[in-house]
């Protein structure tokens, strides 16, 4: 229900762009049909680690219908990377995973592309392959990046190699506190690599314009990042590269190349288009995606906690070994977040956690939905239950005992203002029937919580143009993938400008016209673009009031706008249509263009002064474990989320439910499996299992109100946090059902059965 003070906010309008999607309009990247375009394809390494001795492209070039064949030799000698510059767009000298791009072809058809790729002769000298992140740190492991120095901040006694980045999280005196604890629990948890498996394949299309500029179409979450990479790698100025975002058929962080440097196909496509002198379009095959594009990394997490007899947590120590894959990608950021979150979101005064992000010969870590968080939460929240069991305290009671209060800090996070953690736990416990539900044979109940930091990060802008008919055209830097830009963003403009939401059009990103943005990542669409859009709409409204004031013979401060009419407050008879004012603007300022910004520095200062109110969540479930097959069926699942002010309830529920489903998949079945040579064993959807409707419970979502966040009207981000608790909630329920604690994902029938049998012995 809309709050009384709002006209549209808080309601669930029909998603903009819905009609195109249900009628099958060709709006996605994959539907692009550029005139005269030829097809592009990429030759990928068949070795996980090897020296490139030679590449012979002559036979491929000679094939009829081939327009261009490129290798690293055809590109400027420029490396790239977000945190560590460690990668060429096409491998040079060495390949580091099976799927590393080595060469690319543009040809008249996909069939000729395939033939040409087969005719490229690459001679490799295989090198030892290392897949296990802990093995790669040992002195005996092969060196994966000869030119990358170890991180400067490594602990002096670390004695490690192949480390890409290090994060240390420290607070208080954990050694002393651990010694004084009544009970100490120490465990090791491990998660495996999963692929985001958005349904629309990744595409890129490029065309060199007559003036030499390059136009790129990409189903990219970070079009400005793509522009940066393409300009840098092709050594052209930024204003000579224009990136147009197509509609996206899912992304989940997997399509955020450009901010991650992971398997970026866009620069390769641009290079092909320049060399071929024809527009080129690359469409990745799904199996090619699974082996080559960015993924959610596996993490190994050592966790140790000291508690008092009464259940008070006094110390946490631990170590994270986070798999970056073959290149730095998003590993440093995701690994750092995992390390910080292993400290937990409960009151824990003494913490010491070492986080190592390490290179292996596997595909590259990307910013997949809640990067680093779900892994840490699997360990932290499973571990909470292990501690509660050791203490003989109820898991809900144990969690509530350690909830931080206003003014407290959780390690690595600004001072807290509002803490909804306890409330989400209490509601989840009530909804699942904690302590009340009578469980059947082989059934168990479990709960897990989560938090997510989404208020810090790059800023962004918005422009609201008011057209002469009173409609509005909005430019933001974030793209729509079922997220805020066509749910909440138009509602904000409608609210502030007093126009119907259907009169608001949000333009897809064009890097020539849209304000710069870091990308649609980090649950930040509503925080960044929502804040900027609100201020831009208010700016436009102020300009309109100024223009209308003389006509209405009133002060701008006395005006209001509703139903596309500007009225004098208290004198509704005195009004002028918005269209009239917007048209009259042509002879004054031309057009009303409102500008607004999300100023991250301002936001950080605000948080420093008044505290941070991050989103919190608790999920709870009841499962039934088949002791003969190991199959786990989720019978009931509740998700309780504080996302601050809710702009569009159905959209937020959709984010929560989708995120939970993704982690339920990781909990029960999803995993990219490798053989010892680093070859992916399950690249196609036949073997890569994902949740279908049969294995999904109805997720019952509850949105908690009353804890305003950093976004517009007190909104918080909602896209990622739903991924955080599910794995531990399910593992805890399995443990409750069977008495067996499983510390390695996935909780597949095979692994559950193995654990049950091991426990019997």
């Amino acid at each position, binding site marked *: 229900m809309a709050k009384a003070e709002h006209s549209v906010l808080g309601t669930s309008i029909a998603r903009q762009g819905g009609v195109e999607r249900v009628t099958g309009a060709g709006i996605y990247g994959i539907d692009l049909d550029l005139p005269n375009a030829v097809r592009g394809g990429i030759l990928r390494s068949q070795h996980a680690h090897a020296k490139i001795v030679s590449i012979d492209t002559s036979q491929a070039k000679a094939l009829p219908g081939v327009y261009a064949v490129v290798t690293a030799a055809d590109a400027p000698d420029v490396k790239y990377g977000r945190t560590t510059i460690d990668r060429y767009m096409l491998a040079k000298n060495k390949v580091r995973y099976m799927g590393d791009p080595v060469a690319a072809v543009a040809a008249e058809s996909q069939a000729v592309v395939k033939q040409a790729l087969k005719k490229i002769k690459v001679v490799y000298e295989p090198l030892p392959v290392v897949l296990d992140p802990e093995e790669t740190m040992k002195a005996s492991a092969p060196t994966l990046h000869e030119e990358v120095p170890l991180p400067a901040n490594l602990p002096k006694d670390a004695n490690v190699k192949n480390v890409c980045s290090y994060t240390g999280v420290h607070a208080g005196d954990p050694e002393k506190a651990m010694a004084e604890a009544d009970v100490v629990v120490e465990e090791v948890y491990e998660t495996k690599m999963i692929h985001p498996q958005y349904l629309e394949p990744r595409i890129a299309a490029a065309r060199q314009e007559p003036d030499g500029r390059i136009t790129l179409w990409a189903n990219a979450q970070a079009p400005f990042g793509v522009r940066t990479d393409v300009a840098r790698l092709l050594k052209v100025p930024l204003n000579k590269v224009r990136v147009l975002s197509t509609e996206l058929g899912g992304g989940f962080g997997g399509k955020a190349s450009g901010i991650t440097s992971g398997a970026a196909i866009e620069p390769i496509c641009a290079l092909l288009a320049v060399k071929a002198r024809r527009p080129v379009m690359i469409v990745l095959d799904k199996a090619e995606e699974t082996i080559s594009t960015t993924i959610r990394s596996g993490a190994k997490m050592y966790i140790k906690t000291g508690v008092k007899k009464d259940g008070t947590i006094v110390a946490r120590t631990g170590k994270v070994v986070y798999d970056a894959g073959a290149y730095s990608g998003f590993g440093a950021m995701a690994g750092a977040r995992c390390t910080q979150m292993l400290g937990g979101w409960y009151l824990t005064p003494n913490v010491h956690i070492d986080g190592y992000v390490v290179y292996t010969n596997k595909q590259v870590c990307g910013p997949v939905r809640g990067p680093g968080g779900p892994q840490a939460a699997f360990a932290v929240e499973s571990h909470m239950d292990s501690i509660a069991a050791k203490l003989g305290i109820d898991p809900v009671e144990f969690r509530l005992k350690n909830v931080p209060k206003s003014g407290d800090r959780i390690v690595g996070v600004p001072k807290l203002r509002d803490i909804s953690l306890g409330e989400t736990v209490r509601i989840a416990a009530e909804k699942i029937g904690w302590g009340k539900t009578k469980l059947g044979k082989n059934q168990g109940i479990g709960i897990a919580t989560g938090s997510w930091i989404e208020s810090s990060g790059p800023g962004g802008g918005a422009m609201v143009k008011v057209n002469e008919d009173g409609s509005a055209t909005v430019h933001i830097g974030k793209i729509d993938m079922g997220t805020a830009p066509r749910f909440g963003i138009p509602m904000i403009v409608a609210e502030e400008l007093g126009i119907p939401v259907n009169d608001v059009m949000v333009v897809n990103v064009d890097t020539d016209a849209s304000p710069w943005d870091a990308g649609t990542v980090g649950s930040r669409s509503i925080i960044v673009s929502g804040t900027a859009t609100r201020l831009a709409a208010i700016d436009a409204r102020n300009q309109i009031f100024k223009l209308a004031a003389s006509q209405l013979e009133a002060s701008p401060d006395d005006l209001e706008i509703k139903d596309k009419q500007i009225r004098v407050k208290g004198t509704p008879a005195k009004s002028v249509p918005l269209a009239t004012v917007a048209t009259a603007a042509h002879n004054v300022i031309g057009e009303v263009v409102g500008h607004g910004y999300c100023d991250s520095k301002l936001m950080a200062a605000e948080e420093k002064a008044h505290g941070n109110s991050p989103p919190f969540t608790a999920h709870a479930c009841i499962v039934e474990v088949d002791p003969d097959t190991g199959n786990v069926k989720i019978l009931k699942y509740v998700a309780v989320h504080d996302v601050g002010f809710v702009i569009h309830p159905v959209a937020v529920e959709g984010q929560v439910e989708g995120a939970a489903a993704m982690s339920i998949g990781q909990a029960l079945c999803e995993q990219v499996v490798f053989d010892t040579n680093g070859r992916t064993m399950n690249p*196609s959807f036949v073997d890569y299992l994902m949740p279908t409707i049969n294995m999904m419970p109805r997720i019952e979502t509850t949105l908690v109100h009353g804890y305003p966040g950093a976004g517009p009207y007190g909104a918080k981000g909602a896209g990622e946090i739903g991924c955080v608790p599910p794995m531990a909630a399910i593992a805890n329920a399995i443990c409750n059902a069977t008495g067996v604690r499983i510390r390695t994902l996935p909780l597949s029938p095979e692994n559950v059965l193995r654990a049950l049998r091991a426990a019997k012995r």
Partner: protein
Amino acid sequence: MTLTINVTVNGKSVSADAEPSTSLLEFLRDVLNYKGTKLCCNTGECGACTVLFNGKPVNSCVVPAADAVGAQVVTVEGLADGEKLHPVQQAFIDTGAVQCGYCTPGFIISVKALLDRTKRPTPAEIEEAVSGNICRCTGYAKIVDAIALAAERMEGSTLGIASGGRS
């Protein structure tokens, strides 16, 4: 060698040439320009390319175009009546079941097939009907709402399943 494929798509008979290896999906998308049928896994696992083939839902990526000679094919483009959306399409919009929307055409075809053969589907029948369609965005909750709402509107009946979801 090319084959001439005569087929009825969305009630219109068409004739076009295709390579023998062409799938029905490729034929629809690349030859006939019906882009509403989506390409994803190409292995018949995800349901994004579902079309009605003589009234039955099939994964068009694993059906040879040659098999469609003389067949009646219905794609998502064939459901709306001019500007008026099919009740299944409208229900997907109204319940918030469309996030990225890429799986939506496939789901809508599977659901149309279900409601064509069963006026009052049980929850188990609903589950079975879309068990071959993967959605990565919604967690399926709103899709179940959409199916229930579409069935209600088409039959004027209540299925006793949570519907709507709009505040």
